[in-house]
């Protein structure tokens, strides 16, 4: 069995055991339901959005919410609702991609550091901790300076910003698990280090990492919006919640809906992610294991 099959299998077992239980409470149903809805909206945006998100109509600029523009139009007469819907695509995909990269790299580094220890561990942890000491915006600026503004820079900036968290958490799990009797028993049966690490340690370490990943997607959305707000992220006409709010500041008093609706979208999404994450922590019963990472 190769690594990807193993990952799929762990995820599958994880899903069967716990995601269901996270939906057991009222909060879990509402928050989880909203997130599922949001993902569907992002996927099917072209069919759901009533207008082309980039179509300008200067004659109908800054129209207030009503019919046919339910959430009004911006300074170029573009439909705010359509832009918020397509903005969900940008926010979710950028954040999820960045966190996936961050998780993959962090788990690899953290697991190797925790398992092999010694000088290697110290080197990895020093570098990783260094990335944590730079403000996220500064990291983003470095990428913008290298590859120019856009979603790629944003993705890498978010990935680096959360790398330390995943590395430290995975390392802490592995260091703790490594001392367990069943790992010693596996060594006694003649298992190779790779077998122990991939087949026994990682599956047992993955649950808290996935939950932190879930919560980090919420933070990633905020960071993406922040970078977009400063013009470092999505470039026009790509709709991004942060960039929309940025352009909305100019007409804050003239047409407040341009800034309010993307702002509400960010806020509600992040709250839903956090509430669902909390339900996951409760369902997995891993509150203790998230400490000290």
């Amino acid at each position: 069995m190769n690594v990807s099959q193993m990952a799929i299998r762990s995820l599958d077992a994880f899903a069967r055991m716990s995601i269901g239980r996270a939906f057991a409470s009222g909060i879990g149903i509402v928050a989880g339901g909203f997130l599922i809805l949001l993902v569907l909206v992002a996927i099917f945006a072209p069919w759901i959005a009533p207008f082309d998100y980039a179509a300008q109509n200067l004659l109908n600029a800054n129209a207030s919410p009503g019919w046919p523009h339910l959430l009004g139009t911006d300074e170029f007469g573009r439909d705010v609702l359509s832009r918020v819907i397509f903005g969900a695509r940008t926010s979710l995909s950028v954040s999820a991609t960045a966190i996936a990269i961050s998780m993959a790299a962090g788990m690899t580094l953290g697991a190797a550091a925790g398992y092999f220890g010694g000088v290697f561990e110290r080197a990895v942890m020093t570098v990783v901790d260094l990335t944590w000491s730079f403000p996220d915006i500064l990291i983003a600026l470095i990428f913008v300076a290298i590859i120019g503004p856009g979603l790629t820079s944003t993705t890498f900036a978010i990935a680096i910003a959360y790398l330390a968290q995943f590395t430290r958490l995975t390392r802490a799990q592995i260091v703790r698990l490594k001392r367990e009797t069943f790992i010693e028993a596996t060594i006694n049966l003649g298992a190779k280090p790779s077998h122990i690490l991939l087949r026994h340690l990682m599956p047992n370490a993955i649950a808290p990492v996935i939950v932190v990943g879930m919560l980090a997607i919420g933070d990633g959305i905020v960071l993406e919006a922040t970078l977009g707000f400063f013009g470092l992220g999505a470039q026009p006409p790509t709709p991004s919640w942060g960039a929309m709010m940025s352009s909305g500041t100019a007409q804050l008093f003239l047409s407040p809906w341009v800034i309010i609706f993307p702002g509400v979208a960010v806020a509600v999404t992040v709250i839903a992610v956090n509430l669902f994450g909390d339900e996951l922590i409760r369902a997995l019963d891993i509150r203790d294991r998230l400490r000290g990472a």
Partner: protein
Amino acid sequence: MLSVRDLGVAFGAVEPLSGVSFSVDKGETIGIVGESGSGKSLTAMSVMGLLPLIGGRITGGTIVFDGQDLTKLPERAYRKLRGGKIGLITQNPMTSLDPLKKIGPQVDDVARLHLGMNANEARARTEEILGTLRIPEPALICDRYPHQMSGGMKQRIVIAMALAADPDVLIADEPTTALDVTVQAQIIRLLDDLVKQRDLALVLITHDMSVVAQTCDKVVVMYAGRAVEYGPVEAIFDRPRHPYTQALIACIPRGLDDTARLTGIEGTVPTVINYPKGCPFHPRCPRAEAICATDPPTFSVEGDSAAACHFAEVAHAQPA
């Protein structure tokens, strides 16, 4: 089959184990007895080559298995022995199984690794072994997770894993400590049967003299990281010559006579950093004399057995 000669182990400057010798052949059971902290488990870890893992090293002696000295064996070759030729049953079955893997795949892994079997062959073998360990409905058990089973059942699974690659030597490190008394007897009987059926060499590490009396052919009594007495089990029980062995035997509860009191040995095993000079047992020994505090005793051999006591010649005449 397995022969340990004059084994010494050190962690940095401290030497918790020295001068340990024993040997065991096919179809034979040797008991290693002693209180907690006497170096029994450390002996097992040395044989399994696990000392580097806990920061220890072998300072002297040899561990010869099947004609090769394991103290000089590189890690890669050692991995083939562990679980393959030498099986280890650990102290605590409750935590010896991976909580996230079903029983079947966990046991299968051993045969797949050491015997190069494919998934189906390994599963057939797993079910066969579970059957010989008197586990009802092996196929059903294979589909269970460890938390769904009782302690005695888990210990059988751990034994099954140790047996899966058909080893020549089995080391059982206090296999019954964590179990109920009734289950303890079952497990001990099971091990005893396995030795006979499979012609195994069994090293049974325990602190329970009554278990030794029931199952072992030979016994090594350990105290403070040293072997203090060894020999055939009948000889040791008939004529224990070391005061420590005598005390251990006196601790076996017997009969239903409610006037009898449970006996113990005063004091505790010294910690590694303050092993006493001379005979390590002298501070707790009822018959210690001046010489015991200064000169380490040598083995006094009598037939197949030997005791490291200055007064071994006279000791058995008047049991403590």
